[in-house]
């Protein structure tokens, strides 16, 4: 009977009158689509085309290519943090630990064995997944602890995790190289083909950063879409329910422990991937690289970008990575700012970067808690309501 009362789902049901009527949603899939409006589809496509088709990596200076690559990697890590902190509402200061864990896992699987260091020398298709899986397993293991507390206590707990992790990194010399020394990153080699080397494609000589740039972009797309997709599923709604009120969520039948554990596990996976890629760009990394400041930087990515949004994570990553560079290049034109150490001036450019960074986080928290994404929403809503205001 219900089949009769229900809608006609047959493929023969015509699409009569749907063209040009985005509000006339006739099925749930379309209502919940990732790209549910034509505008979203167009913007995403435009972004992909610009990144892929633009000859930027061929012509940009090598350090700028690296910088953009870093943006993509930060975005991956930021999406990871957004899953646990933005979507599921579990504040984590331990994100840097998982990044580091991913980095050293990758270095172990992908790096060569030396007299002092263990390494398996495997290719990228092994070490990259492992760089995600190992932190995910660790995240899964500590999640039950983290799931028992919330708010301030959770922040302190994850902070403790960070310190424990830093200590372990410093002491596990045969894996990490030890404090102050560190180790070289894994080699991004697939089937004997080194992505991080100079290549000539169709007669054009590519700088060594170029292929890796495309790899990171592709990973960002895949992981970003996966996260966006997760957010619209039952799991994603469970995350939001836990964030908004865990007691209420549990009463509605959302298993708290399972949901929080899943959030931590997924977040750690993303962080591990990002950490592994980050070492390739950075080169040699020491245990001190994965400290509280890096965690805060990733919190800044999601706070400035926009909590619980994927596109916000990407915007935030771009902002956090590119802002220091921008300040640096503008500094010579601003009086009283010393471009280099030793130059006369009131502030050095590094001090200014730090201060701006702090000021921006405060400003966003106070003025636009939804971050850059919130700013975008304002702009969008202004035009969406045109010619009305609401």
């Amino acid at each position, binding site marked *: 009977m219900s089949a009769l009362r229900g*809608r006609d789902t*047959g493929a023969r049901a015509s699409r*009569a009158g749907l063209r040009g009527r985005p509000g*006339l*949603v006739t099925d749930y899939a379309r209502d919940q689509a990732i790209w549910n409006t034509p505008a979203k589809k167009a913007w995403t496509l435009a972004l992909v085309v610009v990144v892929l088709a633009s000859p930027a990596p061929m012509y940009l200076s090598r350090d700028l290519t690296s910088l953009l690559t870093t943006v993509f990697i930060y975005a991956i890590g930021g999406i990871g943090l957004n899953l646990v902190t933005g979507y599921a509402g579990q504040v984590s200061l331990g994100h840097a630990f998982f990044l580091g864990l991913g980095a050293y896992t990758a270095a172990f699987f992908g790096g060569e064995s030396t007299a002092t260091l263990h390494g398996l020398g495997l290719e990228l298709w092994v070490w990259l997944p492992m760089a995600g899986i190992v932190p995910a397993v660790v995240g899964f293991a500590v999640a039950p602890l983290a799931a028992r507390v919330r708010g301030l206590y959770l922040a302190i707990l994850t902070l403790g995790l960070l310190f424990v992790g830093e200590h372990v990194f410093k002491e596990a010399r045969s894996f990490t190289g030890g404090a102050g020394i560190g180790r070289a990153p894994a080699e991004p080699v697939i089937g004997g083909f080194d992505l991080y080397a100079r290549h000539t494609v169709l007669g054009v000589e590519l700088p060594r950063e170029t292929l890796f740039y495309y790899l990171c972009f592709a990973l960002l797309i895949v992981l970003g879409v996966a996260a966006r997709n997760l957010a619209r599923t039952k799991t994603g709604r469970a995350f939001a329910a836990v964030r908004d009120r865990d007691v209420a969520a549990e009463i509605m039948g959302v298993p708290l422990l399972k949901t929080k554990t899943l959030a931590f596990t997924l977040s750690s996976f993303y962080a591990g991937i990002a950490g592994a890629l980050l070492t390739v760009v950075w080169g040699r990394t020491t245990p001190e690289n994965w400290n509280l400041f890096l965690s805060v930087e990733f919190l800044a990515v999601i706070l400035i970008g926009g909590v619980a949004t994927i596109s916000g994570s990407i915007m935030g990553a771009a902002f956090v990575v590119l802002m220091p560079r921008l300040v640096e290049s503008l500094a010579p034109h601003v009086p009283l700012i010393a471009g280099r150490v030793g130059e006369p001036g009131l502030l050095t450019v590094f001090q200014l970067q730090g201060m701006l960074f702090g000021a921006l986080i405060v400003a966003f928290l106070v003025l636009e808690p939804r971050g850059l994404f919130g700013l975008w929403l304002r702009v969008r809503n*202004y035009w969406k*309501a045109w*010619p009305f*205001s*609401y």
Partner: protein
Amino acid sequence: MSTLVDAPGPSADPTVRALPSRVHDWARRRPGDVCMREKRWGIWQDITWATYWEHVTLVAHGLAALGVTAEDRVAIHSENRPEWLYADVGANAIRAISVGLYPTNPAAEVSHLLRDSGATVLVAEDQEQVDKALDVEEECPDLERIVYVEPRGVRDYDHPKLTSFEELLELGRGHRQAHPDLLDRAARQTSPDDVATLIYTSGTTGPPKGAMLTVANIEFAIRSLLGSDGVFHPPPSSDDVALSYLPLCHVAERAVTTWTNADSGLVVHFAESIDTVQANLREVQPTLFFAVPRIWEKIHAGIQVRMSAASPLKRLVYAATRRLSATIADELVANGGVHTAKSRLLYALGHPLVFRALRERIGLAKVRGAISGAAPIAPEVLRFFFGIGVVIQEIYGMTEQSAVATVNRPGRVRLGTVGEPLPGTQLRIDESTGEILTRHPGVFAGYWNQPAKTAEVLDADGWLHTGDVGEWVEGTHVRIVDRLKDVIVTAGGKNVSPSEIENQLKSSPFVKEAVVIGDTRPYLTALIGIEFDTVAAWAQRRGIPYTTYRDLSEKPEVLELVQQAVNRANERFSRVENVRKFRTIPKELDHGDGELTATQKVKRAALHERLNHLVEDMYGDRRRYAGGDQVEVHGSADAEGGQAPLGASR
């Protein structure tokens, strides 16, 4: 000048196709095509012709299983939804007569309608309607069965007459197996003179009367309204999209939804409720849109309210395009609703700035046929919509004519008139009374069980006396002056049409109801009900505190606002036609309280009686109640504890 216009067109045709056979045809030819959509669980659910016809058959068989036979009445008491159509067409499929009840009908009226029609089966939408029916069930001896569509709240009712819609379909399934040829037989027996439906007139004066519309009446209406020289050009097709939201028991909505759908295959979308019409409009973006003046006024007022709350830049741009649209409107009015080069250019200029977005917001971006009917509308409102490129065609027709009389055809729109006679219509204006008379195959078969009342409106020659006073404009278009019985003759002997003045008053976004009074009185006065939403928003912007509707409508500032609207309306009329005084109506008029008809028309007599103290206050030169004359406004003496009237400056 001849006062008779005999428009060529369809006549009574032997090859009549009743609604069930039309739906059956569609189901045979295009079973998988979508014919309706209903919003449920936030999604517009497709309904195909095959499903439509399947339900019609099951309902028909189910009714037959309940003992309904030809000429029995099946009442339908529901908001617009697919089940309405299933029940309506299903009843016709076994030659039974459908009777629509307004969802807002209170129990007392439900009782009257059920008794008067003698309905044996009632299809009630939900608990609300079932409760009304159960309240009066004992007064209705003919009523044998109540079929409820929404089981929520009714499921646990224990009453021998209750059946669920599902059970009805189940009954139908069994009956269909036993009598597979029932519908074919009924279709063959269907004659053009079969009464298909009773449409109860809203009854501004007496109790509602059931107008009998026959199969032939409906057939003529379909051919005349939807033919090549009908309301729309080109005629509706299955590419057209419409929103169904006005009560289906009214002849206009029935014509727009059921008849047009069955004839042309236009895709009908059912609004979730009358409150969500604006949101649904935006989603559906209909190509053909029928609305009563009240809806057009509401859209118009809504735009003004929202614009006044918009940001300065947006207001600036809007103000600039208002100038454009004023010129566009003038051009369109002068040119019969067709763009001239100048208006097209101006429209192209305003399109990217405001028009495109504005029309999208109000859901009229894709509209190709916009119709206003069922009551007179103020030219100001029409001009506004002309100005944004939506040419509204005013249509005139009444239940007793199957809604067929005159329309402003595309390209020949004349503002202030209801257009030219539709194909097949003979239209005559009585020399002595000015009353409009029509004659065509769509004229009804009479009032149900009321031959005396029928004889009052239908003369021996087949002319229908509409009760509307009209006049010819340039020999082609008809202008409606007013209802014959509403025309006011002042003490000075001057004939005044109150509806024109009332519409002028109602074109202000702050005025919802206006009733002009003055029969046998020395001058005109008015009772005015404020539009709560807009006035409340206005008061909020000014920081005027208020508590209730009554409190708001008695605020001196609000009275001043109403006085301005009155003054503006007065400027358009001669001195005798000016409204000298007004009083605000202290409550929102309501159908349930007997002040409005089901179609939201004011019942003048009832209102007069109820608000007689306000009327006497005006003509007795007292100021006990809040209102104003042309010089100053004054609050209510009661509210002010008997103090002196408030000056205008306050």
